[in-house]
């Protein structure tokens, strides 16, 4: 543990060592911030202009977003930053300005906060990233965010488990191998380590950032294959509101053998979501509420969902900003798990999952952050969250009626500093406490402590990143297990829009309380605890490059990752009985490449085309067998255009069939080996009119799985069939 303590000390030094009082002896000064996120923009270029608009001085903003002009006859300043609209403003001596820049990136010039834990231009990040923004998210009328993730290059979703470049596959009841964050804070349940997608407020998701590759050097456990950060909107100035509603129906299946009477399955779905945002003084308020009902296209697969979201932002002073967010969700859904067989794909298995049994769940997440600019060169961000999940089942079989209550408490202090001109330091310390009370996992608690330090050194045209994080995790009174996760990266700006990057990262995932302590009988299979489980580990390496012009963005990368001690269920004899247990079983490696092309043929964004292709070769390093549930080919394409008041968009996905599946699952599910390559087309058309009081109203019609292609994402589970929906949306 000595190494961990060393890194902890370094983290503390980085956090508190560079604080200087804020002073202002300038002729005039100011701060540059992102209008949407209110985050300071470091590295923005400030040009001081004379009255005839000639630049006589240039400087960059500090980590606090601050700039100071101390000399010359300044009449105007010109502010520019990568990923933002330029702006020029007139100034007077003694002014203290706050300049808010609008995001308007050129292709490939987005900014991202997740990759380096602070706002960074995408081309300065040494690892592959993807960003999906609000219009694309809401435009697909998703019932939950996992639907949106399926359209991100390199990302696939298998039965609620997110796969980034084949890193996760699917292992029944194993926690997520991709770390999921909301506004930078972990959002995995404390018992089984799953992502609870239904909590997320679709209307108020500003963007989703995906970091592809191991990310434990900044984020710790679960960032084995990547990090997904859902960033919610901030309250806007003035009062605004929005209402969005859609309703639709699943089509009838083509084959009579599959059909079940309409009296049993109605196949309709509907959603309504409304929200409002505004400011009272300097305090911003934002809230939304959603109700969703899906009758399902399969028997025993319907759901009722309700969720709420509230966010408050308030400045305590010119240098502090406090944000608190509350998310609530309540869900009740059927117990469909697997089909009966290939001739009854819409009927549930009689033994796996209960038609009459329903699953009830409640989720609540409260998180707060305080961003304090302590000096020109130092920002302290304090974060804390409480994440509660609960589920219970009223299965018809008494042996499979589990419940679980789990709470995760999280506290983190992060410091960002640029005291040295070319060196940007990010450091932090954190603690996490988990408590679980369940008849599945019994009562257990876990505690995690960690510290990280990262430096980004600019040596034009390159930026070098070096960092590491130490984590220690302890469950109940057992001895702690530690992990040290280093990373190294480099980006090179080769000029004229050409950039290269390379990185080596490490990841780990501590076993969940569920995996270690589960003790339950499922369908005759006794699943027993394994207190000896150790963390899964990963190492990922990539080399890539990108090229961008005003209307074209091309990105290509090759990657290689190794995974050790992957946790999977297996059967064994214990105390004279045959049982199922989670074990550290698999040593894996994944080689692959990924290409993304974005093309904007017109000078504006009225026509956009995007194409992403990912190839992975995933195999067991010991047996040389192909890994379970990893499609080798993944292709995603999107076209979007606007014609006057009309908007048209279409998505296509190709997912090659996985070559190998879990043999335990294959034995349990009838015709479980039935699988095909998947070709999925979606299309939608929208029309915007000026409604009452000049409020814009958008009407849209959407068809998902246009060709009614029948495929599975996992054994014995027909993916959503063709469905039609009509959507109305207005903002005021």
């Amino acid at each position, binding site marked *: 543990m000595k190494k961990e303590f060393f890194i902890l000390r370094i983290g503390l030094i980085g956090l508190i060592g560079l604080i200087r009082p804020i002073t202002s002896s300038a002729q005039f000064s100011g701060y540059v911030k992102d209008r949407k996120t209110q985050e300071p923009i470091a590295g923005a270029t400030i040009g001081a202009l004379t009255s005839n608009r000639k630049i006589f001085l240039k400087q960059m903003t500090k980590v606090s977003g601050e700039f100071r002009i101390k000399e010359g006859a300044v009449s105007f300043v010109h502010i520019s930053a990568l990923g933002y609209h330029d702006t020029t403003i007139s100034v007077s001596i003694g002014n203290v300005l706050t300049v808010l820049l609008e995001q308007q990136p050129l292709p490939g010039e987005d900014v991202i906060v997740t990759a380096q834990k602070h706002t960074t231009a995408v081309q300065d990040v040494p690892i592959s990233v993807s960003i999906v923004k609000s219009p694309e998210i809401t435009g697909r009328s998703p019932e939950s965010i996992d639907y949106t993730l399926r359209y991100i290059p390199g990302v696939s979703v298998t039965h609620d488990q997110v796969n980034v470049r084949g890193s996760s596959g699917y292992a029944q009841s194993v926690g997520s191998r991709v770390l999921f964050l909301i506004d930078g804070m972990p959002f995995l349940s404390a018992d089984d380590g799953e992502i609870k997608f239904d909590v997320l407020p679709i209307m108020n998701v500003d963007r989703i950032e995906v970091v592809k590759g191991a990310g434990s050097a900044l984020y710790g456990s679960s960032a084995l294959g990547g990090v997904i950060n859902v960033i919610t909107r901030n309250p806007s100035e003035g009062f605004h509101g929005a209402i969005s509603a859609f309703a639709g129906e699943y089509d009838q299946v083509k*084959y009579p053998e599959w059909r079940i009477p309409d009296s049993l399955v109605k196949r309709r779905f509907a959603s309504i979501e409304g929200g409002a945002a505004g400011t009272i003084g300097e305090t911003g308020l934002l809230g939304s509420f959603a109700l969703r009902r899906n009758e399902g296209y399969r028997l025993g697969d319907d759901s009722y969902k309700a969720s709420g979201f509230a966010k408050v932002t308030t400045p305590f002073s010119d240098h502090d900003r406090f944000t608190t967010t509350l998310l609530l969700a309540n869900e009740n859904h059927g117990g469909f798990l697997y089909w009966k067989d*290939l*001739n009854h794909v819409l009927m549930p298995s009689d*033994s796996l999952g*209960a038609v009459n049994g329903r699953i009830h769940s409640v989720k609540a997440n409260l998180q707060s952050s305080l961003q304090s600019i302590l000096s020109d060169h130092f920002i302290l961000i304090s974060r804390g969250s409480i994440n509660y999940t609960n589920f219970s089942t009223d299965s018809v079989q008494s042996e499979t009626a589990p419940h679980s209550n789990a709470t995760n408490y999280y506290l983190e202090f992060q410091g960002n500093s640029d005291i040295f001109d070319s060196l940007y330091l990010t450091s932090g310390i954190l603690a996490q406490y988990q408590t679980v009370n369940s008849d599945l996992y019994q009562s257990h608690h876990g505690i995690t402590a960690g510290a990280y330090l990262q430096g980004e050194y600019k040596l034009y045209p390159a930026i070098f990143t070096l960092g590491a994080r130490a984590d220690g995790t302890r469950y109940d009174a057992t001895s702690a297990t530690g992990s040290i996760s280093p990373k190294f990266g480099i980006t090179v700006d080769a000029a004229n829009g050409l950039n290269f990057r390379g990185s080596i990262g490490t990841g780990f995932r501590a076993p969940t309380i569920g995996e270690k302590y589960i003790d339950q009988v499922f*369908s005759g299979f006794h699943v027993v605890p394994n207190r000896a489980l150790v963390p899964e580990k990963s190492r990922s390496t990539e080399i890539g490059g990108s090229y961008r012009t005003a209307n074209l963005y091309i990105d290509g990368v090759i990657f290689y990752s190794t995974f050790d001690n992957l946790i999977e269920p297996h059967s064994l004899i214990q105390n004279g009985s045959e049982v199922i247990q989670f074990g550290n079983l698999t040593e894996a490696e994944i080689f692959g490449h990924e290409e993304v092309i974005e093309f904007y043929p017109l000078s504006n964004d009225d026509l956009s085309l995007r194409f992403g292709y990912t190839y992975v070769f995933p195999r067991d390093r010991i047996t040389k067998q192909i890994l379970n549930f990893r499609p080798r080919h993944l292709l995603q394409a999107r076209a979007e255009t606007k014609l006057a008041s009309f908007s048209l968009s279409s998505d296509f996905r*190709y997912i090659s069939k996985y070559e190998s599946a879990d043999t335990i699952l294959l034995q349990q599910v*009838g015709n479980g080996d039935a699988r095909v390559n998947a070709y999925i087309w979606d299309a939608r058309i929208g029309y915007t009119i000026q409604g009452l009081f000049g409020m814009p109203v958008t009407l849209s019609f959407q068809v998902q799985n246009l060709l009614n292609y*029948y*495929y599975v994402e996992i054994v014995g589970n027909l993916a959503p069939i063709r469905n039609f929906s009509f959507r109305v949306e207005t903002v005021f």
Partner: protein
Amino acid sequence: MSKVGFFILSLFLLACDKGLAPLPPEQIAEISGAVRFIGVPPAGDSVKILAVVLVQPPTPYAQSQIISDLNKTIFAYPLSTITFHDTSYSFTVKPDTTYHYIGVAQNFGNFLTDWRVVAFIHDTKDSAVSFTLKPGEHRDSVDLIVRFDSIPRQPFIK
């Protein structure tokens, strides 16, 4: 036509393949019936799984073969409830195949191999009845009566 257009058309045509489909009638037959429970049922915790099973020859005389051959020569249809209410079953099987017998099997112990037969279709000499289903044939009313207090001779044991 441009290469891009041809590529997109190719994908469209591939998608028209429709993906998964039911097994063709000539590849399957169907069997269905009812399961009735008579007498006092055993304690619930001794019934791990209760399933209708259909067994191809050769008969697996070692009970462990029941599990190891689950997807090869034995078709198991787990019953949805172990509350011992009368229920019905229906499943598809491979046609033109001789099935050694059809019955109800109970997994009762701590081993996945702890199975016993609690009902099966037999003739007057207490021997299992073999049968073959033609392609597309649906044999219904193959009813099974489970008497836990008088379980039949175990056909899996020599």
